[in-house]
């Protein structure tokens, strides 16, 4: 199994280590509920060094990426981060990405950890002229600091005025703790916060200094367990759950990141056809009425007929309810339905998502 540069730190902090897509990662330290609350109310520090990074550069870089992803990069200026699904020709999703526009001919693409090799192979397979791609995943560590106190804490370690980095923007060569880093105002929690990309060998230093700087402001290390409950409450999609090779971004409710009007891209024809024929499935949010927690893969049924399945279900630490997201037949329009839990139908009710309102500083 692969280890991030912070593996020893996690063990020393009492992190409970698990296999996550081939990576040995902390699922929790003090406990998921406690960690979750810290991020919502104070601040949390995440090691997300397992995420992959691919550099795309050259005269053809812009056109190349435009063809690979569903969102439109044409309006993006350097310093901007763009979120986008990347599709197969049939409209299924290869992965969802963050694209950092470094310069007109240079992009830093952040991909899901477990998809890094698959994505890089896909990038290679679709390579065009005058484009250089480089899988730099091992050279970069990534730390995320999230929560209402995130900026105050990170600001202690850099002279760069973080106020100048707006939501979904970044700055390169920010010196944090003496380490030149890429700093973006992004995250996966629904809270204000930053993601910091830095050379792998410096990750331990920044990790320790951040925990020191944040100790009086409630900063604690956060494992993958709370990372999942945090993203789930604000309904940020997780690849393998709300998105996959068999779920299109339109079905997943991510139509705003699919620009069918831009020039041709992989999957465009299929997605146009889906739109014209009517999208067959939709993502809905729900709250359990009966006793039980819906889990990924559980069947959703209505009057005894299967209408879909749960993509993510969990106890919501912030709302103290059992909530879920499900992919169901698009023509289903009732308020109530059942989740099949251990062979029993347990009642659930449709509720709008995100369940928890995002607290972004824009």
């Amino acid at each position, binding site marked *: 199994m692969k280890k991030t540069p912070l593996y020893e730190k996690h063990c020393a902090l009492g992190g*409970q280590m698990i296999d996550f897509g081939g990576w040995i990662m902390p*699922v*929790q330290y003090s*406990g*998921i*509920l*406690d960690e979750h609350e810290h991020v919502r109310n104070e601040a949390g520090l995440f090691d997300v060094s397992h995420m992959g990074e691919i550099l795309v550069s050259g005269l053809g870089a812009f056109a190349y990426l435009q063809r690979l992803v569903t969102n439109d990069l044409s309006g993006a200026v350097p310093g901007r981060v763009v979120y986008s699904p990347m599709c197969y020709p049939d409209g299924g999703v290869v992965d969802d990405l963050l694209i950092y526009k470094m310069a007109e001919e240079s992009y830093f693409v952040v991909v899901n950890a477990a998809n890094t090799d698959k994505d890089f192979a896909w990038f290679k397979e679709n390579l065009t002229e005058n484009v250089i791609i480089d899988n730099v995943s091992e050279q970069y560590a990534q730390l995320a600091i999230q929560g209402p106190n995130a900026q105050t804490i990170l600001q202690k370690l850099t002279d760069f005025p973080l106020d100048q980095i707006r939501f979904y923007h970044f700055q390169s060569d920010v010196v944090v703790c003496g380490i030149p880093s890429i700093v973006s105002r992004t995250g996966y929690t629904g809270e204000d916060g930053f993601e910091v990309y830095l050379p792998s060998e410096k990750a331990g230093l920044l990790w320790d200094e951040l925990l020191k700087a944040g100790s009086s402001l409630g900063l604690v290390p956060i494992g993958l*367990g709370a990372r*999942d*409950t945090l993203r789930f409450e604000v309904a940020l999609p997780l690849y393998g759950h709300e998105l996959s090779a068999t779920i299109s971004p339109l079905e997943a409710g991510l139509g705003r990141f699919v620009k069918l009007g831009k020039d041709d891209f992989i999957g465009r024809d299929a997605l146009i056809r889906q739109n014209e024929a009517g999208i067959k499935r939709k993502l809905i949010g729900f709250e359990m009425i009966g*006793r*039980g*927690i819906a*889990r990924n893969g559980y069947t959703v049924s209505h009057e005894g007929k299967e209408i879909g399945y749960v993509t993510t279900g*969990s*106890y919501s*630490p912030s709302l103290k309810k*059992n909530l879920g997201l499900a992919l169901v037949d698009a023509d289903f329009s009732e308020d109530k339905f059942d989740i099949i839990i*251990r062979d029993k139908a347990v009642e659930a009710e449709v509720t709008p998502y995100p369940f928890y309102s995002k607290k972004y500083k824009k």
Partner: protein
Amino acid sequence: MSNTTGMRFTKEHEWVKIEDGKAYVGITDHAQNSLGNIVFVELPEIDNDVCSGDTIASVESVKTVSDVYSPISGKVIEVNSNLENDPGLLNNDPYGSYIAILEVSDASNLENLMDESQYQSYCEEEH
């Protein structure tokens, strides 16, 4: 934490304690610790007849669902309904928070269970 005097333990990390022909069944400290924050407990139905090894309850943490197997055969005569509103009791006091009480019909499986010191070494070996 409540004491463990007279308890016997399963390999699946349940405990059982017999008092006056009644078997109190719960999960061990090791179990709650590896599950993490417990947020839901599905209790058995009263009057259910169970054999040792049958699933009698489900305990869910934030991330995982875990079955609870009965260490003994009998009829469910009482459940700990406090766990419905406060499942975290299993984290805070695993040996003081039974899940169900059984009227024992066949105690022979008790011989196959571990006493506390055997269970401690079993947990250490598992790691």
